[in-house]
């Protein structure tokens, strides 16, 4: 197996409020191969967005700080780079698209001009060439009549079109990795399917690697090659998609799967995981999932479980992992 394109080790983000500092991202590690789509899964507040913002060094508040970890891009450590040097990575090698394209586009600049701005900055060249490249990018992301639509403003686009425009913007600098932060959550289901198909096409045609942040296991099942499940800022399970979805080892992963409408079967009530995700200023000791876990045993409240291997590349952090038999009984129950 080839060396991963991106290797993240022990990524930690601290939130500082006065004296106290809490780790909202705590030692997150994962690897991304060329052309791979990795699903970063978790509930709101699980740290999936913050982990990626930290990767891009775009933490949204001055109270949040990178507190440790290593990020290797194509074998080169990039975490220690000074800001000026890091800017050649941001956008150019790692691009990003966002959940709400309406607010992430400049409302008073024409779509084509926003793309051309990025093209000119990253690839140089004349204004006309950049404009032509912008139209070409809009065509590639499936916007009909791109030459005309390039002159439109974001509010004149539909939600799906805006997300396509965001993708074109990210591709303008020709990155190797695309971080997609819940790009389909704000879209309706048919448009969501179109965007997922588009991302897959782009991955295939450009050999792009994608980190896909989502809370939707259904989307992961459709799109991703591997899964990294986060809870309370920590990785609780990581592995190839088929392996993890077929044999979830962490009770949280199993719980998330049971919550998917359809997998629970029948017309009964939607299953839920009891309780709420922990607040970032009141994270539980030991395994952070233990207060909500039906599998909790005596060490769970005190000792943080290590990530143990269960199959090749399949790791889970649990003192009392799910066995296949017990999962089946839960499903038929």
């Amino acid at each position, binding site marked *: 197996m080839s060396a991963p394109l991106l290797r993240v080790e022990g990524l930690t983000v601290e939130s500082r409020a006065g004296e106290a500092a809490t780790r909202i991202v705590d030692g997150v590690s994962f690897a991304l191969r060329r052309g791979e789509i990795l699903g970063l899964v978790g509930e709101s507040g699980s740290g999936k967005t913050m982990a990626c913002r930290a990767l*891009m060094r*775009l933490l*949204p508040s001055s109270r949040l700080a990178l507190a440790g970890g290593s990020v290797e891009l194509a074998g080169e450590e990039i975490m220690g780079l000074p800001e000026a040097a890091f*800017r*050649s*990575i*941001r*956008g*150019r090698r790692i*691009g*990003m698209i*966002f959940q*709400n394209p309406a*607010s*992430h*586009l*400049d*409302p*008073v*600049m024409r779509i084509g001009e926003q793309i051309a*701005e*990025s093209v000119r*900055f*990253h690839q140089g060249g004349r204004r006309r060439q950049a404009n032509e490249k912008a139209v070409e990018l809009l065509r590639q992301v499936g916007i009909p009549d791109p030459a005309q639509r390039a002159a439109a*403003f974001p*509010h*004149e686009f539909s939600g799906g079109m805006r997300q396509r425009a*965001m993708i074109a*913007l*990210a591709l*303008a*600098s020709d990155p190797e990795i695309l971080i997609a932060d819940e790009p389909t959550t704000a879209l309706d289901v048919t448009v969501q399917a179109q965007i997922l198909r588009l991302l897959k096409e782009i991955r295939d045609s450009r050999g792009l690697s994608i980190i896909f942040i989502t809370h939707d296991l259904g989307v992961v099942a459709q799109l991703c090659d591997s899964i990294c499940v986060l809870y309370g800022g920590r990785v609780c399970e990581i592995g190839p998609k088929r392996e993890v979805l077929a044999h979830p080892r962490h009770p949280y992963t199993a719980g998330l799967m049971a919550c998917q409408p359809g997998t629970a079967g029948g017309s009964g009530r939607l299953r839920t995981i009891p309780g709420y995700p922990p607040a970032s200023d009141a994270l539980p000791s030991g395994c952070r999932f233990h207060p909500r876990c039906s599998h909790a045993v005596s060490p769970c409240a005190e000792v943080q479980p290590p990530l143990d291997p269960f199959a090749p590349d399949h790791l889970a952090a649990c003192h009392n992992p799910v066995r296949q038999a017990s999962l089946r009984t839960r499903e038929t129950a």
Partner: protein
Amino acid sequence: MHRYRFVLTRPLQLLPVLFGISVITFLLVRAIPGDPARILLGTRATPTALARIRAQYGLDEPLWTQYFYFLKNLAHGEMGRSILYKVDVLGLVFERLEPTVVLVLGSVVLALLIAVPLATLAATHRGGWVDHLVRVVSTGGLGLPAFWLAIMLIILFSVRLDLFPVSGYGDTWIDKLHHMVLPCLTIALSLSAVLTRSLRASLIAETQSDAATAVRARGLPESVVFRRHVLPNSLIPTLNLLAVNIGWLIGGTVVIESVFAIPGMGQLLVRAIFTRDYMVVQGVAMVFAVASVVVNFLADVLTVTLDPRVTL
């Protein structure tokens, strides 16, 4: 181009506005106690002389007849004759227009020259001492009355430092601008206080906006983020605020022109009120009203041009 359709329909809306203003100014100026003929001729005037003056200017007619003549004149593009100066009001107003226009435009330009850099400095050094200083000074600027500020500026720059003239208006353009520095500065200081506060707040909000984050995520440097995305988005609400303030400013020139003895429309208005020169008061008030309406109209055109989301 339907977004600009209001350019055609808006002038029609101007008519009822002007009609209302004509009624109000006509009645208000006549509600002031005092007789124009008496003020013109003095206390020893004979009743026949007074009657002759009143007849000459139609002041002996019933109110509604006088108003009818006023409207009829306006429809013909005239404003009647000044009782005091004995010339057409329109000519008088045009003569006094230039200093007032220079005063207003100069103040706006100066206010922007002060506000944009200060707000930028404060927003980019948020929470630092520059920011605190700008906020304290601009809050202070809001509280200072213009006439007091004018006198302080005269004492400092004209009397002590002898840099600018105390009052009046020049003959050549350079001379005129030299005379207008202090009056413009007086207005600009309070105007820029309002603008700085607004612009600083929008700059900070736009710097942290999703759109700015997305531009940073594309690897563009902070200077580009600021110049091409943060600043244009922040200027839109501030320019609207400026437009509202220009309307208020046109009235405010009355005080400044009096303090600096500038022969503009404001000064003309004050003198006309003291001498009960009805036609001049009506004329100047109408011009001020039209100017305010036109400024707001131009502001709307500017907003529609700058912000593609706005439709009027």
